[in-house]
């Protein structure tokens, strides 16, 4: 798992461990120092108590010294020590009370000592008053009674006990202070040594790890630098190609701009042609409408012709019927003539003239029959011609109908042409407007392409700069590798 730690982790761990040890050492040192300071304070306190005790005895001795000088001399000047000791004695007693508040033994001794002090001071004041009022002997009797000495002995004893106890405490606190100082020294020394050892190990491990990782990183940097160099070179080449392409695009866009202008002009021409086409379509529509009216008139005339032709066909048919009757009559006449000839032949000589008549009648009938055949042929020709005429007329009618339909289609086509021409005009104008907008856009694109070309040149310069920087980075990584290897070696 330690192999996966980063350099920062390792450094943080090494420094963290050292800091922890330093913290422990500091805490122990602080604790020890605090105890030492406390011991010193208590020692000072004890010395203060001792001084106060000594000050109480000293002040009492000063007061007694002043009292005895005054008693011997009667001079008021000798009372100055007595007067000066009044306040300090009481202050020292109060200080002792306060300084030994945590010591019940000393408080008990103070409880015993305070009446003795008061009694001593009262005895001193009484003797001084007696010396003033009754003279030296009255005062001397009191002194000789030993009362004052008794008070002082008791006080000396109590002070001696208090002093002894304080000195005992002072000795104990001195031992404790030495023990604390010794422990602090041991802790500081051990902690420092342990911290140094851990820091040495951490430095070794971190240095080694950093060396390996830096070597790998430098190798990676070198590889990346090589790739970056190649990429920068390629980018520079690409930038040059892009610059060339931008120039070509700019040329093409200029051509496109020219073409757009030509398209706009063509669109204008198309719009004019479409207008002319629309006008022509309107004229054609009017012409076709007039032609359609004429065709309708022709159709009516053709219908009349067809009616006449059909009537003629009927008449021809009726004539054919009559001709059939004539033909039949001629045939009957012919038969009659033949039979008359037979009868005339049977009549002998007297029937010869009748035979001539019969023969002529027969010939006439034959000629009539021939004529009826001719007439039938003529009638058939007439009927055929009528039929052909009717058929042709019907064909003409159909053609007229078709023409009418086609004219309707032509009219619709003209209308459609007109609509398309209008649409074409609108479209051509839209094309013109769009082409102009396109030309404007193309000009903007041309400007943009020029900017791109400028940016490409800057990119090319930047690529060259990058290439130079990469070369420097490669050199730097090589130097860094040499430094790391030298350090590793």
């Amino acid at each position: 798992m330690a192999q996966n730690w980063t350099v920062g982790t390792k450094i943080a761990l090494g420094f963290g461990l050292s800091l922890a040890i330093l913290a422990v050492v500091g805490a122990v040192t602080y604790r020890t120092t605090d105890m030492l300071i406390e011991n010193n304070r208590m020692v000072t306190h004890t010395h203060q108590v001792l001084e106060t005790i000594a000050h109480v005895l000293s002040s009492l001795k000063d007061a007694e010294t002043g009292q005895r000088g005054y008693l011997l001399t009667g001079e008021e000047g000798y009372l100055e020590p007595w007067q000066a000791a009044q306040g300090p004695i009481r202050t020292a007693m109060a200080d002792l009370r306060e300084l030994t508040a945590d010591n019940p033994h000393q408080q008990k001794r103070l409880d015993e000592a305070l009446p003795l002090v008061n009694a001593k001071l009262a005895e001193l004041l009484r003797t001084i008053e007696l010396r003033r009022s009754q003279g030296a002997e009255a005062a001397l009797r009191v002194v000789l009674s030993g009362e004052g000495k008794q008070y002082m002995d008791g006080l000396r004893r109590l002070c001696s006990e208090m002093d002894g106890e304080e000195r005992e405490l002072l000795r104990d606190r001195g031992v404790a202070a030495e023990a604390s100082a010794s422990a602090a020294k041991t802790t500081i020394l051990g902690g420092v040594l342990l911290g140094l050892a851990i820091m040495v190990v951490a430095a070794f491990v971190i240095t080694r790890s950093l060396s390996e990782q830096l070597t790998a990183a430098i190798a990676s940097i070198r590889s990346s630098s090589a790739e970056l160099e190649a990429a920068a070179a390629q980018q520079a080449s690409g930038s040059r190609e892009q610059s060339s392409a931008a120039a070509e695009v700019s040329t093409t866009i200029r051509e496109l701009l020219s073409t757009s202008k030509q398209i706009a002009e063509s669109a204008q021409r198309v719009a004019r042609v479409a207008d002319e086409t629309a006008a022509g379509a309107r004229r054609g529509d009017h012409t076709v409408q007039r032609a359609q009216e004429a065709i309708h008139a022709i159709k009516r005339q053709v219908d009349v012709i067809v009616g006449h032709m059909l009537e003629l066909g009927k008449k021809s048919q009726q004539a054919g019927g009559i001709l059939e009757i004539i033909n039949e009559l001629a045939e009957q006449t012919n038969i009659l003539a033949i039979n008359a000839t037979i009868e005339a032949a049977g009549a002998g000589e007297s029937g010869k003239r009748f035979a001539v008549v019969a023969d002529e009648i027969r010939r006439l009938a034959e000629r009539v029959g021939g004529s009826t055949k001719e007439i039938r042929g003529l009638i058939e020709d007439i009927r055929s011609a009528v039929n052909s005429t009717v058929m042709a007329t019907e064909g003409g009618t159909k053609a007229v109908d078709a023409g009418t339909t086609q004219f309707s289609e032509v009219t619709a086509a003209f209308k459609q042409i007109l609509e398309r021409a209008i649409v074409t005009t609108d479209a051509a104008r839209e094309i013109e407007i769009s082409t102009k907008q396109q030309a404007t856009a193309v000009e903007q694109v041309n400007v943009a392409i020029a900017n791109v070309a400028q940016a490409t040149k800057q990119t090319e310069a930047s690529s060259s700069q990058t290439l130079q920087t990469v070369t420097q980075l490669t050199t730097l990584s090589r130097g860094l590798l040499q430094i790391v290897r030298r350090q590793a070696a």
Partner: protein
Amino acid sequence: MKVALEDNAWRLRQAFDDSFAAPAVAPGEELLDFLLVQVTTRRFAVRLSEIAGVTRSQAIVRLPTGRKELLGLSCIRGAIRSVYSMAAMLGLSETQPPMPWLALSERPDPVAVAFDALDGFVRVPRSLVLEAARSDDRDRLTRGVINLDTMTRPIVDMQRLLDTIRKPAGHRGPPRSDS
């Protein structure tokens, strides 16, 4: 067309008038009259002198008879006549066509012979008629031919045909003709 018809009528009228204005026929070569008839698909000629008349066929009442050539009876010119099929007599067909034309004979019995079509009447010189002697073969019903401009037609021997009709049934062999 109107002019052509008027011309035709004028020519007809002129020809009719001229016929009366012309003199009688001068004696010369003998002229013979023939009926040009059509039997089934074949064309024949019939001497006008051998028949008593020609007419359109009337209603024919069929008879229950074993003679195939007898078509039935018909009333013509106020007389009941037996109607025979010329085609059957000439052995051309055994069918019963409409046969709208009848050639009439009065002697010795009123008989009618039906044929299919009447092509017309011709009067030709005797030189155009190739006569043949009447053979003893009673079944031969044609005799001679007539030469016309367009074709040659066998001449039906109406006398022998009428004799064949009068001959009792079963005494006659298969009919033959010169054609």
